[in-house]
């Protein structure tokens, strides 16, 4: 394998991970942009998505069924959390929200350890997507290509929803200035609820499709949470385009970091953040604070 094939494979790996981060970070950044709520428990939804995928894949024998069932259940959990806990903190400001959602992350992680145990679990990819196929002169795992394709489909769906529907229009307006949209007679909390549920579904989908590729363990939420933080800071709060660009950057940085200087892969990511902050404190695509 020549050096260019190695680079190409590494770039593809980075793209795969970048897309996963984007799926999780998109809901987080939209809720942050609309309501100023920093929902740390969002990362727990990704983790729950993966664990439910394990349970459903092993009980029903179908990965595809779990790709539908798991996000539905996770969205239900998320909606209950929003309705009975998170909603009470909207008027209280950031600190109660951070504390409450972090407490939830603690609790969900512990419950996951109680239910599924502490050993890492594995889900196998469906037979249709196993193995490798020839790809640009080398070979590449089919499943990773599926992740890229599937997340691009979701991305297109999201863009169409946000750019071409009325609900999407209101959501974009509310990210820009929620108070003004509310003053014009729109029920902003309802749209926030839609975004919140949608974000939960996307995080859970990311968890399900990540499950066959990465191992499932109770710290996987913390891991993606850090990546998401970097992504929303680098991309700018509330900016979907920023989250997309930043997620790909972070994915590639991690992938090439591991290839070149494995010890510093994690450091690169935060270095990128520091550099962006020093130049543009509101992130690449963020509005002025």
């Amino acid at each position: 394998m020549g050096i260019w094939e190695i680079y190409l494979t590494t770039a593809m790996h980075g793209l795969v991970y970048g897309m996963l981060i984007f799926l999780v970070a998109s809901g987080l950044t939209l809720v942050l942009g609309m309501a100023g709520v920093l929902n740390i428990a969002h990362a727990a939804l990704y983790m729950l998505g993966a664990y439910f995928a394990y349970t459903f894949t092993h009980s029903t024998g179908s990965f595809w069924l779990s790709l539908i069932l798991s996000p539905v259940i996770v969205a239900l959990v998320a909606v209950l959390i929003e309705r009975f806990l998170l909603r009470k903190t909207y008027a209280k400001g950031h600190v109660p929200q951070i504390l409450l959602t972090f407490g939830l992350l603690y609790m969900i992680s512990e419950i996951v350890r109680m239910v599924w145990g502490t050993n890492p679990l594995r889900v196998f990819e469906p037979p249709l997507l196993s193995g490798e196929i020839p790809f640009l002169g080398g070979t590449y795992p089919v499943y990773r290509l599926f992740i890229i394709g599937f997340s691009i489909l979701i991305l297109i769906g999201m863009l169409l929803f946000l750019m071409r529907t009325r609900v999407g229009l209101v959501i974009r307006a509310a990210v820009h200035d929620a108070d003004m949209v509310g003053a014009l007679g729109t029920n902003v909390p309802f749209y926030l609820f839609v975004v919140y549920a949608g974000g939960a579904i996307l995080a859970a989908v990311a968890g399900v499709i990540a499950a066959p590729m990465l191992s499932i363990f109770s710290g996987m939420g913390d891991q993606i949470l850090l990546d998401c933080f970097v992504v929303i800071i680098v991309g700018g709060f509330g900016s979907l385009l920023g989250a997309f660009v930043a997620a790909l950057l972070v994915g590639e940085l991690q992938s090439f970091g591991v290839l070149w200087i494995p010890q510093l892969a994690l450091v690169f990511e935060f270095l990128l953040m520091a550099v962006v902050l020093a130049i543009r404190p509101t992130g690449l695509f963020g509005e002025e604070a």
Partner: protein
Amino acid sequence: MNRTVPYWIAGAALILGFLLLAPHLLPEMKIHLIIEIMIFSLWAVSFNLLFGHGGLLAFGFGAPFGVGAYAAALLFQHFAGISLVLTLSLVALLGFVTGVIIGSLSVRLKGAYFALITFGFQMFLYAIALKWYSVTKGDDGFGVTRPALSLPLAGNLSMANVVPVYYFTLAIVVLAILATYLFQKTPLGNSIALVRENDVRPPFLGYNVYLTRLTVFSVACFLAALAGGLFVFFNEFVSTAVIDMNISMIVLLMAIIGGSEYFLGPILGAAFYVLVQNWLSSLTNRWFLVMGAIFIVVVLYLEGGLISLFIPKKDQPGVSMGGK
């Protein structure tokens, strides 16, 4: 108002008297707990200088604490026989420098931006501590030995026993907390409260908002690094646990649980946290579950913190809980 002053003095004298006598009254295990409470108190008070007094939520306040902890550990490890006072001075100074660097890039921002950005810097430092294995031993951490305290007249005082460690920590923490209290009362310390209430008007009055915030941030980091240094001095061990995400949540919890509107609130919070954590971990190994529930209950039902159970809530608009 004046009638309450004697009570305050009586209370303070009572607590100080108890703290001075504690090593002779309590078993060693309890002394360990009090030392831990004192160190966390200093850290929580320095956090609250920014949060309660300055209205700045430094979500990444584990950064100066961790820097202090690692600096102390590395100094103890590589310079055998280094003076204890010199080490802690260097550690605190390094904390101040860390504060200047992080602060110069972050205090321009407010609210969630400021919170997340300080947190990002902490994670940057966490990544270094985790991955620079040859120096920090990563997750495993490494142990150090407490140096003796050299006193000008009395010669060297061994710190091998817990009792001298207790009194040394008590002296440093009481002095540092007292200094923090006095700092809040200075014109500079007060101007941060002015900037908290309104950051548009102060420039017209000749205040430099950026420099005020930066100075107070750096002073808070100075104190936090001192707390981190004491933490390693007491535990004789350092690992990434001093700079990970949990530690930032812990200081936030201590400030909120105790009551961030009052200077003494975070101290109460630190005591509550250490005692409850100690009690829970002896009862169950699922204490994360209970701790998470405590976070939620505090947020939903105990808005003013524990201290509000003793002191009626202030009438005037006090410190907001972060705000938008």
